[in-house]
């Protein structure tokens, strides 16, 4: 019985890690261009910021995936009442098969995927905001220069 739970964990870990790595690689490969635009072509700072965010992303998502790995066994408890020596006693047994564990596994992977999606969209929002802000800053600088020239 416990063997099945261990098997579920062993199935969950590679899926979670692979999901994180794939998402992070796709996102941070494409965010380099945005970073270059935000930092107006200063390549060093853009790359290092990208790297910092990548590290943070890995830490956050892997941490979340591992933090949520434990399967709550109270869902599998079935309660029976039996007569033991004339006294009605409550007996709790753990009952679970492949189906239950597969459901739990899929729900865990699903929640992880949804959280990763939210994170990616939040980071995209941040990128777009940064782009807008840096463009505004550039405009203001040009305006200031024009005023000084006059």
């Amino acid at each position, binding site marked *: 019985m416990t063997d099945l739970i261990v098997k579920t964990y062993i199935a969950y870990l590679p899926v979670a890690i692979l999901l994180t790595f794939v998402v992070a690689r796709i996102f941070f490969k494409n965010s380099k261009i945005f970073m270059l635009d935000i930092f107006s072509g200063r390549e060093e700072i853009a790359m290092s910021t990208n790297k910092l965010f990548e590290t943070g992303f890995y830490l*956050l998502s892997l941490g979340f995936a591992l933090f949520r*790995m*434990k399967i709550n066994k109270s869902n599998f408890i079935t309660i029976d009442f039996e007569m033991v020596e004339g006294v009605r006693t409550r007996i709790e047994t753990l009952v679970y098969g492949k189906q239950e564990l597969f459901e739990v596994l899929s729900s865990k992977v699903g929640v992880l995927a949804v959280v990763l999606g939210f994170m990616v969209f939040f980071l995209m929002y941040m990128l777009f905001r940064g782009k807008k802000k840096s463009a505004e800053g550039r405009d203001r600088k040009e305006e200031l220069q024009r005023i000084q020239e006059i």
Partner: protein
Amino acid sequence: MTVGADLYCNGYYLILNLFENEVVTQTINKLLLTGYYLLNIGYIALTLTQIDEVETTTVALEQLAYNIGRILLILSYLHFQNIALLAWLSKRKHILINQFN
């Protein structure tokens, strides 16, 4: 089962190497790194006392994943805080330079 305890220690030192900073000064970087090490060692010391009975593989895996996940979350929080601080500082620097020139 002391294998779990050993596994922790190995897991944590890998995380430490990832830390890099765009701050030009080396000293600040070094200080941050030291803080990182201290945090991790303290966390290991705290968690090692918590685990007392690891009977089966299931419990071992659960404990390991839970504790590593928790330290990763803490580190990610600190990491993003650090990035925010750096961004704020660089903005400040810009304003200061503009004022003094």
